């Protein structure tokens, strides 16, 4: 009910803004220009800055798109905004998108962004956790709605320790950092370039142990659209991806400018933190399978692993999806 209402509100607000743009543009130009909205997965982090740079430097305009960027409230609500057509392009965990597709949501992934999972074991200095085997007998503050939680058994199998020997306490995101700092838990699992940083600002930490280093990896935050948009408006998506790729190229070259563009659009954000996050983003933008193929390129092998892991981790992952059912690289700029 609430969700419906929100979707409706979003629809109305985007419709209203589209109209405003339509009115301001001249008649002739309005025909060639297209309007679209981009719905983020969350409130902006450092890795979102290149989108704002592309917007402020007019890369989307060059491609003939008037784009508006809206914040999100978690991958799932962005999924609904896209599948119900209230926004054009969404950013969400592509693993979540795949789960949605398996449940009948008409979606398609069109570009990878965070392709290497930054999910890592984070513990304080002196915790004695320097390798996965050390986790046995330790207490883990876990969050049931994290994918890293669902992948923990796969991580244990790959890294060779006994997951049943780990003690577990369920904690929400709001308190897991504090609990770790207080010593109420021995370790948490969080992003190496966001959560680990936050903890390290308070107390020294051990080197984070990354799932992906043990071969357990799923595609994370990426771009997706509804199947309808993909079928009806491929030109728009090609233009969008070209402008976005340019935004990332320029943004990674000049992170300061990218963060400035983001901060101008979202004045309440913490510039210093955004900059640090953006600076640490590049290694996560590709896997070894997709390295060197340009921004957004997703490799079939990575999708195969994502689908296998999702199927293992989620009872609700229905059917037998193949990579081609969930993604395409067709809209990426040809390099």
């Amino acid at each position, binding site marked *: 009910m609430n969700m419906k209402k929100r979707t409706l509100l979003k629809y109305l607000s985007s419709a209203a803004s589209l109209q405003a743009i339509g009115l301001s543009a001249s008649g002739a130009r309005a025909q060639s220009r297209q309007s679209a909205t981009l719905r983020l997965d969350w409130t902006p982090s450092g890795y979102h800055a290149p989108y704002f740079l592309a917007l402020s430097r007019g890369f989307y305009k060059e491609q003939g798109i008037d784009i508006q960027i809206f914040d999100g409230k978690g991958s799932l609500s962005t999924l609904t905004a896209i599948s*119900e057509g209230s926004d054009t392009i969404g950013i969400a965990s592509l693993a*979540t998108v795949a789960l949605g597709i398996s*449940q*009948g949501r008409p979606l398609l992934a069109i570009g990878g962004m965070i392709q290497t999972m930054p999910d890592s074991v984070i513990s304080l200095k002196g915790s004695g956790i320097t390798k996965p085997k050390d986790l046995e007998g330790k207490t883990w503050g876990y969050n049931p*709605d994290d994918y890293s939680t669902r992948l923990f058994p796969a991580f244990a199998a790959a890294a060779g320790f006994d997951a049943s020997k780990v003690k577990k306490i*369920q904690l*929400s995101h709001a*308190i897991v950092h504090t609990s770790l700092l207080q010593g*109420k838990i021995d370790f948490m699992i969080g992003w190496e370039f966001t959560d680990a940083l936050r903890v390290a600002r308070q107390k020294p930490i051990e080197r984070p142990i990354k799932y992906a280093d043990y071969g357990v990896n799923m595609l994370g935050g990426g771009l997706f659209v509804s199947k309808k948009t993909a079928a009806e408006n491929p030109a728009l998506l090609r233009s969008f991806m070209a402008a976005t790729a340019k935004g990332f190229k320029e943004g990674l070259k000049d992170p300061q400018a990218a963060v400035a563009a983001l901060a101008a659009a979202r004045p309440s954000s913490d510039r210093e933190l955004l900059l640090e996050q953006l600076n640490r983003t590049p290694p996560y933008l590709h896997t070894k399978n997709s390295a060197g193929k340009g921004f957004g390129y997703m490799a079939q092998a990575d999708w195969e692993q994502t689908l296998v892991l999702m199927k293992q981790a*989620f009872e609700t992952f229905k059917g037998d999806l193949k990579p081609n059912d969930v993604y395409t690289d067709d809209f990426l700029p040809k390099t």
Partner: protein
Amino acid sequence: MTQAKELALPQMRATPSTWRRWLAQAETPYALISGLAFFLTWQVAVDAFDFPAYLLPSPLAVLKDLVLSWDLLLSETAVTLFEIVLGFIVSVAIAMPLAILFTYSRTFERLVYPIIVGTQTIPKVAVAPLFLVWFGFGLLPKIIIVTLITFFPIVINAVVGLKSLNMQTVYLAQSMGASPLQVFWRFRLPNALPSVFAGLKVAIVLAVIGAIVAEFVGADSGLGYLIIVAATDQNVTRQFSAILILSVAGILLFGLIGLLERQLLPWHSSVRRDALVDS
């Protein structure tokens, strides 16, 4: 209206048919009819508009989930119910003595009442994470959150009820030699009970919310925990199952308070029906 029928019937007929009397008094059949209509509308709407299951599951799908996973759902329900009931009892145990103190000491009321009102303006969702950090991860923070959220309506209504005693009654009792304690037990408290029960009814419904808020923040079991896990699974049907159970549990607990009220205040049943309409 039901009241009038109930009173009129025995006079109109020497032997009123039992089913009519039952129908006039009972609430359950009416609730069943409106409940059934609700689910029917829901089912028809899902079928007619063809809502995808990831947005709105049909009541039949929810029913199927309830039947197939009854053992899991039952054990999670037990956890949440325990938190609700225990938190509610603690809340009553604190709120009632406090209300009595407020009634008898104006100074105490002036000192403490503003603080209580002040704490009520804080959204519990905002402080729930702190309680977990302060009080650990067990049952305690959940009980505290339920207590905090239910405490206010109980105090407010009890104070209103306790203060509403007619002074003339007090004077009469005193003139007949009643001690202050007797005035309290024989007059003030019974006079306050309808109001107290109004507060309890609001509180028990809030207790359900409190328990879920607490479980959202940090729990290993319970219906709130189940809802979070189901959301991650994108299992909307399971979310609806849990919500439906919560709603039914709330109704039953509310009914239980009503039953208790009827037992304690048989003379006051007409007011009770009015109060029900009010709340």
